[in-house]
């Protein structure tokens, strides 16, 4: 501390200090100050500096008077149990947990140099309004276990850590006189602590925005900074210069927190009354004027940073009254220029209208499942998953809605609906797709807040929604227990907006199998996207980065959740746990990703997700040896990686954020470069096999992406905006609210399949060939081959196989029943057929390669080179097709289909209805819309029949002729007649004709019956030999299901009602004869029907007519038999039975 004080108040040229910090060479003037500790101090100097500034500001910052808004937002409890956010300005604070872990020496060194951390993060530093002056200062040394109170309202909006795992800083070891003095001055009793604790707990329960304003004092005063009151100007200038130097050279571990702190200083507010009451320790930064001056000057110097920050932040800076006062040049001139120079490339994809995960035949259809049942079950799972998501979306913002009550059962049942790896894998895929689809863009929009902007409009149109939005913003989800799954004590990892659904889904599902598959899916998703080639487009790149972050976040959640604890882990337990996990393997090899990215220039893609993943890590994880290397790599990257400015800013902000997490093992941060280099060098140099585009130097990142990746950056704006809000009387106008926008998806870009590492001479020739060509050549060739092969495979799957299977199914019918295993031999034949056809399909596909490649490859390619490309592509295509055939075209592929068909065949043999035309039997018809619709025709026939029977309405001969032509039209010239309908029409037409024969015999013309029978014959050809083998023989003496029933009891009953029985019987006999002549009814059928009739009692007159009819049939049959050219099997039937029946019925005395 003294060193800094000396430096600032001395007159050593700062230039020398900078050189020393940069390269380590110590100027003569400095030597004196640094004594012999030059190297020791060099790496810790920046932290020392920060600590100094904080110490200097501590006394005044304590008096900061929070705006009423601040009060409430601050009070949100336990938001960051595991992921403490911006609140930890802590640069040091080695936890007890790290004390014995590794280098003790380093730990001690850090303690020595940063003893003042407590000032900022402890309760005393930034008391809330409600706290009395006494309770404000609590002893910093004391460890309150298990609950620790850390309050630093100014540092962030969400800082209070209740029951958190943040560890209190160890007491300073007394190397510093100032420190000792502090310790002595702040002894307080335990009771006071308890009182404070109670008060804190009480506060936690009331964090709603509704009581805003009511409790807040309407007017309050604060000291306005005035440049003329600034003291020790030159010292402040020197301090500011040192500070901005360290910040801009990445010497400070967390760029983010330090700027945050500077902004806090800028908006510092102290009430004059308080100022008077309090005795301030004399220091460099002991007045509001000095603090604001220092902050303004330093911020002004950080030019390299502001160009990457969102415009709205700059706007806030530009309009900040204090900056206007202290750096007029900056705010009036440079900032506006900067703002106008930032071209706001809007890369947020246009409002997305598709919010569902599209069904892709490639990955989702039946062929991607092992069995029908698996496929069917997943169909259900898919719908239920979507349903759960929709229910959540609709209800989650409703207060009091409880996801676990509403959805737990559904989620659990859907996840484990079928305990099968295929289903789990598909579900995990769906989960991931949906997650990427909807949850990846939970972020504030990068627009200026205008009164007439969306929120302004919301205020007028739906104030309640705005309130809920605000509520949600100020009371993060974790503080609303109703929405959260699990008990209040449960650990909540930090997820925002729609991502909560996915987190809670995992928690509620509580399915280890699903988790495992999800992990795999996420790991492979990260793998795919990390090696994605399609990053040259800025929008694509942004999507990829966000998608990677989301996947990493959930992977981290799945991996670290079991290790999370809401409690502070006592040291012995901590060590026990770390011993248990000493050889635990990470699901993803971070070191190799980082190393790879470093050498391949893809850090800007990889670092964001690595950081996201690590911010979810539990404290034990980060101390495991496996992580040691990862963290060292990251620190090295932070210090040394060279990227384009915006890219560098992005990864440094992110890394700085990670380093400032309370879990982070701070000793590592003080490691000299050389130590880190050893870590890096330990690993064999990555192969510089550069297939992937280098990204680090490309201009891919802009401020909107930075803010998307680092949502915590908005806290800068919030601080400024809050200040502006409370400053202006109309505080509602410029409230700083983060907006949520519709999420969009990142498409998955699977990397091309890697070929096996078999190397032949040809192979290496090929490799070299591509190596010396532009990389696009290889990509093009591979792409074309991939697509062509995929098309061939698709053809095989959807055309060739179904066609051959259909054919085989048909052959199955004619297959000799003597064959032992028809299915087996057919399968073998099918395999051979499919292979042949697939091979020829591949050959014909290859024919188009030359023209395709000519169009796609660079124009200046030499013809021989192009020819080689064509041949390689052909080879690749053929290879891929063959691979697929080998793998998929096996007997088992067909077995199922054929067996099902065989079973069907057995069944349908039994059930087959004669004459029902099936779709395949039908010749191609051209639809004639002028014909009557089948449903209309059915209705008409039905009505007609009813009317004839019940109301005796007249049906003319012409009506029957018209009907016949209508029926012909409908049945022969329409494409919308289903088999059932056709069958129904058959029945109805027959019924109608029969009924007209019975009830209105006069309407039946000479040709009527013949015409109808001809129509039936044509439309419903009888299938011989099938219907007789009717197995359904119920105990009701059901003979045949044939439609053409003329002599059954019902028909006779109708005939009995005829008013002119003779005509009726004549017609019916003709009908029956015609039916027999045309082969629709067989003699045998008549026999059976007749026998059934005589089992019942009938009036004698009817029996007489029946006898006549039967005799006519017998006569006709005899004549038939005598005709030699018509010798069917039937002809040898004995007709004695029917003759006897006829004679029997004709007896009067029956």
């Amino acid at each position, binding site marked *: 501390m003294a060193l800094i004080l000396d430096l600032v108040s001395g007159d050593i040229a700062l230039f020398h200090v900078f050189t020393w910090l940069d390269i380590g060479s110590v100027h003569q003037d400095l030597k004196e100050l640094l004594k012999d500790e030059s190297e020791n101090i060099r790496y810790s100097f920046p932290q020392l500096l920060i600590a100094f500034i904080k110490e200097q500001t501590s006394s005044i910052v304590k008096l900061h008077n929070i705006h009423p808004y601040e009060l409430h937002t601050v009070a949100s409890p336990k938001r960051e149990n595991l992921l403490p956010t911006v609140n930890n300005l802590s640069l040091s604070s080695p936890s007890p947990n790290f004390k014995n872990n590794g280098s003790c020496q380093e730990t001690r060194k850090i303690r020595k140099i940063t003893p003042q951390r407590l000032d900022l993060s402890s309760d005393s530093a930034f008391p809330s309004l409600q706290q009395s002056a006494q309770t404000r200062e609590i002893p910093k040394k004391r460890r309150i276990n298990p609950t620790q109170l850390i309050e630093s309202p100014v540092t962030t909006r969400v800082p209070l850590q209740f029951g958190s795992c943040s560890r209190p800083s160890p007491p300073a070891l007394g190397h510093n006189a100032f420190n000792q003095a502090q310790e002595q001055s702040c002894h307080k009793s335990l009771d006071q602590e308890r009182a404070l604790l109670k008060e804190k707990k009480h506060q936690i329960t009331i964090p709603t925005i509704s009581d805003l304003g009511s409790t807040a004092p309407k007017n309050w005063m604060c000291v306005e900074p005035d440049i003329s009151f600034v003291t020790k100007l030159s010292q402040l200038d020197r301090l500011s210069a040192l500070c901005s130097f360290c910040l801009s050279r990445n010497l400070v571990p967390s760029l983010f927190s330090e700027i945050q702190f500077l902004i806090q200083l800028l908006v510092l507010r102290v009430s004059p009354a308080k100022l008077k009451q309090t005795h301030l320790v004399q220091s460099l930064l002991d007045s509001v004027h000095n603090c604001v001056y220092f902050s303004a000057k330093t911020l002004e110097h950080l030019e390299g940073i502001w160009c990457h920050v969102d415009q709205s932040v700059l706007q806030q800076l530009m309009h900040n009254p204090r900056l206007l006062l202290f750096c007029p040049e900056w705010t009036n001139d440079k900032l506006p220029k900067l703002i106008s120079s930032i071209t706001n490339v809007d890369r947020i994809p246009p409002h997305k209208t598709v919010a569902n995960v599209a069904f892709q035949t490639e990955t989702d259809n039946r062929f991607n499942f092992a069995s029908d049942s698996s496929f069917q079950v997943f169909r259900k799972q898919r719908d239920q998953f979507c349903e759960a998501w929709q229910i959540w979306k609709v209800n989650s913002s409703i207060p009091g809605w409880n996801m676990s009550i509403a959805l737990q059962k559904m989620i659990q049942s859907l996840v484990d609906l079928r305990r099968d790896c295929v289903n789990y894998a598909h579900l995990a895929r769906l989960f991931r797709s949906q997650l990427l689809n909807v949850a990846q863009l939970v972020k504030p929009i990068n627009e200026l807040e205008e009164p007439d902007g969306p929120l302004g409009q919301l205020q007028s149109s739906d104030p309640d929604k705005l309130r809920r939005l605000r509520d949600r913003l100020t009371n993060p989800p974790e503080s609303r227990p109703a929405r959260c799954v699990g008990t209040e004590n449960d650990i909540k990892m930090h997820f925002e907006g729609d991502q909560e659904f996915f987190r809670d889904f995992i928690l509620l599902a509580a399915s280890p199998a699903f988790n495992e598959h999800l992990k795999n899916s996420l790991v492979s998703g990260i793998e795919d996207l990390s090696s994605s080639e399609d990053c040259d487009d800025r929008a694509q790149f942004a999507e990829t980065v966000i998608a990677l972050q989301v996947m990493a976040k959930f992977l981290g959640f799945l991996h670290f959740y079991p290790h999370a604890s809401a409690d502070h882990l006592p040291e012995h337990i901590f060590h026990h746990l770390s011993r248990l996990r000493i050889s635990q393997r990470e699901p993803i090899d971070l070191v190799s990703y980082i190393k790879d990215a470093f050498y391949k220039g893809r850090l800007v893609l990889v670092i964001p997700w690595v950081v996201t993943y690590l911010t979810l890590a539990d404290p034990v994880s980060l101390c495991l040896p496996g992580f040691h290397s990862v963290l060292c790599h990251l620190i090295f990257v932070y210090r040394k990686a060279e990227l384009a400015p915006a890219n560098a800013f992005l990864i440094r902000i992110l890394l700085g954020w990670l380093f400032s997490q309370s879990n982070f093992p701070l000793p590592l941060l003080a490691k000299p470069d050389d130590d880190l280099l050893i870590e890096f060098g330990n690993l064999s140099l990555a192969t510089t096999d550069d297939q992937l585009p280098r990204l680090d130097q490309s201009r891919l990142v802009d401020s909107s992406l930075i803010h998307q990746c680092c949502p915590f950056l908005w806290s800068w704006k919030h601080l400024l905006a809050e200040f502006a809000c409370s400053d202006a009387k109309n505080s509602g106008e410029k409230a700083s609210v983060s907006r949520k926008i519709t999420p969009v998806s990142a498409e998955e870009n699977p990397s091309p399949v890697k070929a096996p590492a078999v190397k032949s001479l040809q192979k290496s020739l090929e490799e070299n060939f591509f190596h010396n060509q532009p990389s696009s050549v290889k990509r093009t060739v591979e792409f074309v081959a991939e697509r062509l092969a995929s098309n061939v495979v698709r053809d095989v799957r959807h055309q060739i196989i179904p066609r051959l299977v259909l054919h085989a199914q048909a052959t199955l019918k004619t297959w000799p029943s003597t064959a032992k295993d028809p299915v087996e031999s057919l399968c073998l034949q099918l395999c051979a057929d499919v292979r042949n056809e697939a091979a020829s399909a591949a050959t014909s596909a290859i024919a188009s390669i030359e023209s395709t490649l000519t169009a796609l490859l660079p124009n200046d390619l030499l013809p021989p080179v192009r020819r080689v490309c064509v041949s390689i592509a052909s080879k690749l295509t053929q290879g891929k097709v063959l691979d697929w055939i080998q793998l998929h075209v096996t007997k088992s592929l067909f077995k199922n289909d054929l067996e099902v068909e065989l079973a069907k065949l057995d069944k349908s043999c039994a059930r087959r209805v004669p004459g029902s035309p099936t779709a395949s039997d039908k010749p191609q018809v051209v639809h004639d819309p002028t014909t009557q619709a089948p449903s209309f025709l059915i209705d008409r026939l039905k009505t007609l029949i009813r009317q004839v029977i019940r109301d005796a309405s007249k049906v003319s001969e012409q009506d029957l002729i018209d009907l016949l032509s209508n029926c012909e039209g409908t049945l022969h010239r329409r494409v919308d007649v289903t088999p059932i309908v056709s069958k129904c029409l058959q029945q109805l037409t027959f019924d109608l004709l029969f009924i007209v024969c019975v009830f209105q015999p006069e309407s039946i013309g000479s040709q009527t019956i013949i015409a109808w029978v001809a129509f039936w014959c044509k439309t419903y050809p009888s299938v011989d030999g099938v219907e007789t083998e009717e197995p359904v023989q119920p105990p009701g003496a*059901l003979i045949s299901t044939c439609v053409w029933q003329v002599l059954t009891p019902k028909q006779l009953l109708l005939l009995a009602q005829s008013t002119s029985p003779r005509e009726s019987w004549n017609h019916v006999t003709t009908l029956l004869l015609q039916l027999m002549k045309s082969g629709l009814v067989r003699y045998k059928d008549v026999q059976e029907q007749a026998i059934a009739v005589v089992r019942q009692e009938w009036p004698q007159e009817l029996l007489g007519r029946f006898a006549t009819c039967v005799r006519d049939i017998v006569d006709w049959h005899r004549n038939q038999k005598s005709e030699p050219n018509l010798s069917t099997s039937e002809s040898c039937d004995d007709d004695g039975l029917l003759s006897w029946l006829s004679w029997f019925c004709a007896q009067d005395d029956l």
Partner: protein
Amino acid sequence: MARVLNQTTYNSLLDSLCKLPFRNRVQSLQKLFPELSVDTLKCIVAQECQKRMKGSHGRLTTSETVEAMYKKFTNSILMNEEPGILLRLSDEVGLTPALLARSIIERHYQRDDKSKPAKLLVSTLMKNTALIDDRDLAFETYLCLLEDDEYGPIAEATKQSRGYEYEIYLRMELENCKVSFLHEDHLRMKGYDKTPDIKLEIPVAVDGQVINWIESKALFGDEEVHRGYLKDQLYSYWNRFGPGLVIYWFGYVEDLEKIHQNRIILIRDTLPRNMVLMDQHL
């Protein structure tokens, strides 16, 4: 003739429907609501009847009640009552004629252990009443089938046919509009797990809304019907293909779209004529 009803009209229609006797309700309604299309009225009546049956079928066909009805029927036969015995009985007990006939047949063909006969047998007999061995039962059943517009093989065939007819009609209309699409059979062949009637291979826009699929429903869309379809079909399509369109050819109750909340599924009573196709010029 209007096919789209607002909630108020629909409610008053249902009210009047409840008060009407079972027969000829369509004609009576036509007088009360002359502005509505007859097909729509038929459809609403049919759906009301189905709803009623869904509610009471189980209660009305317990083995005891069937036994009683069968006794009544055989008695009437013995008493040589006028044909139409079952029809009258149907009015009396509140089962539709075809459902009553089916119960009676089941009872008539009951097995020796008094269990119901095979379903296949019963449906075969219903389809072709001439096969029923008891002439009176056969004739009575036939009369029932002719009278019933909602149940029985003839009514089923009509309904099925109507659905299919509209599907085919829709396909043809789309072809006329030069919209390229896959229909159910294609989708099934390609191994889709859920198959809307029409999946548009190139999406079109209707009234400013992009749609990716069309489902054809040859009936009247009231809330209950619509919710049922949403659950079983429409949401599944949405989940897979995004926003789409459902056509209730016989009309629907206004404002059903509200149920979907943020899932966009348009409802129309005919194929919109103002479809905007994707611009395919270079």
